[in-house]
């Protein structure tokens, strides 16, 4: 059984207006996505800005009111706050935020920040709690003097690690990492990514790794989902996505990644422009009449794409031939 199963998740933000605050319209931030998260694996969620990645992540961790659909954890639907409370859900599912500064309360000391989930879930004695915090600091590579300092006294990388320490404090099974490194410099980013991988191995944590940086995602994730307009357009292993992308949108994303190989940049630019042109021309084939992605169909046990079944098959076929 999967750790978490997401069924047809929808999050629509009502647009209210007027004096009576009535719902006049809605933003379909997430519009019916389903996937499972297995224990110990890392899932990447990729897509352009506004595609609904953060909303998905927040729904899974319980920060967002879900419009419809289910999130099944231990056989129960945790979209209801009462269920989450009863299961101590957030003890097992935690989150790392993009902006390390804003995610740490600037008026709280590091000790209080890291101990917050412990106080709510574990109810340790004062000394045990302090010990646990010190151990956590140790694990994320910070000195004990950090204990009574405030977040602004740390660098971005250190802060992000404090955020990680808080997320792992309760020994969670799943951590939602919403763009954890996109605000960081390269070398600091490397530091945090390494570190996340390391604790994953040590604790057997699953990640839902949200990012728009395909380079980072490739580095981190075994399974990747591509999101567009609130839906998934393609889902598969790293191999499936990077080497056999089927959906045009995925191809376009991949083509847009800047290439560090200087020698081939002219060629790369040409491919990208070709893909872009193709994307502009063939929109109608890859999206339904409303311009929304189709439902996912399987092209292999691990690989799904949001296309009409026959079209998907033929594409997969063509792909194989090219590979061959």
């Amino acid at each position: 059984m999967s750790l978490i199963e997401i069924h047809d998740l929808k999050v629509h933000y009502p647009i209210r207006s007027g004096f009576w605050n009535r719902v006049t319209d809605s933003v379909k931030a997430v519009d019916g996505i389903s996937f499972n998260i297995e224990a110990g694996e890392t899932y990447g969620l990729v897509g352009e800005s506004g595609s609904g990645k953060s909303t998905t992540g927040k729904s899974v961790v319980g920060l967002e009111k879900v419009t419809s659909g289910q999130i099944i954890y231990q056989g129960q639907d945790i979209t209801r706050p009462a269920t989450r409370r009863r299961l101590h859900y957030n003890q097992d599912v935690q989150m790392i935020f993009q902006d390390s500064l804003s995610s740490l309360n600037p008026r709280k000391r590091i000790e209080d920040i890291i101990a917050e989930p412990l106080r709510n879930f574990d109810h340790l004695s004062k000394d045990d709690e302090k010990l646990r915090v010190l151990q956590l600091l140790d694990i994320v590579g910070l000195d004990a003097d950090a204990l009574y300092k405030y977040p602004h006294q740390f660098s971005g990388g250190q802060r992000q690690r404090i955020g990680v320490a808080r997320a792992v404090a309760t020994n969670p099974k799943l951590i939602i990492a919403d763009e954890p490194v996109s605000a960081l410099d390269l070398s600091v980013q490397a530091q945090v990514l390494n570190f996340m991988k390391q604790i994953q191995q040590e604790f057997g944590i699953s990640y839902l790794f949200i990012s728009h940086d395909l380079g980072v995602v490739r580095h981190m994730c075994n399974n990747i989902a591509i999101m567009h307009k609130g839906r998934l357009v393609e889902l598969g292993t790293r191999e499936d996505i990077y080497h056999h992308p089927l959906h045009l949108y995925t191809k376009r994303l991949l083509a847009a990644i800047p290439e560090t190989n200087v020698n081939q940049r002219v060629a790369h630019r040409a491919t990208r422009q070709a893909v872009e042109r193709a994307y502009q021309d063939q929109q109608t084939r890859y999206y339904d009449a409303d311009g929304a992605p189709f439902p996912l169909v399987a092209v292999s046990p691990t690989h799904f794409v949001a296309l009409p079944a026959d079209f998907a098959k033929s594409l997969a076929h063509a792909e194989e031939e090219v590979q061959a």
Partner: protein
Amino acid sequence: MPNKIDQQSSISAADLTRLNQEAQSEATPSTARIIWSEFKADRPAIVALVIIVGFILFVMLASLFIDTPRMMETNIMNYFNPPFSAQDWLGADSAGRSIAQQLIVGSRNSIGIALGLTVISSTFGIAWGLISGYFNGYVDWGMQRVYDFMMMLPMLMIIIVLVTIIPHYNAITLTLIFSLFYWEGTSRLIRSRTLAEADKDYVAASITSGTNQWKIIFSQIMPNISSLIIVDTTLSFAENIGVETGLSFLGFGLPSQTPSLGTLIANANDPNNITQYWWTWLPAALEIIVLCLSISYIGQVLRRAADASQRQGLTS
């Protein structure tokens, strides 16, 4: 499961006290200390602080030695005694009552009203703003409608009407009447900051840490707008000292036997008093200005201190 963490870290219970001590030595100074050092760095601020604290203490203590009903007795013989005379070094008013004594008791009353008003209205305004800002949706909507309604009320008029309705009103009822209206400014300020604050990720982090909503509002968000609260409260206090003066001037202030800065300043209503009997109103007016300026100045210092503590990346 906790053992997983134990396994991963070399730190054990034995190290606890040592590490804790290490951490203490590196601890960041508290906000109070920062504010104090900010004061120390600013001479005029110290002066303002000394003026305010000294003055309030003096007024509170000295007024204990004054028999107010006795002081407010008409003394026909001292009618408009000029200042610097033997009995009344600040002179006497049209009923022969000592201005100096009235100033002391009046200051106590006015400061008392200001304090009471500030405490009540700020507490209410802060709570209102926090709750309204944190819970969006119908709670906020409803609270906003109430707020709009209160804003629509012509405050001064309603206060005057209330004052005429209430039969045995005194400093306390007056404070309560003012409190009905004075929370509005604070609540709007706090609400807008809370809205911004509630959007920040640390609130989301607290939610995912399982902290309950009220605790998030009052122990996570509130400390973050504390500088705003401190500054706003200080400035309201400065403003509130003069709050009853207007009413007294129009003749709807405290009862005549309860001296206040307002009733003293209201002496200026009679143009004859302006120059001829200047001592009946000028000291009170000057006092208000000095108090208000000093407190505003302190407010500025607090604002600066608050900013400094928020200065990012600077290990203070």
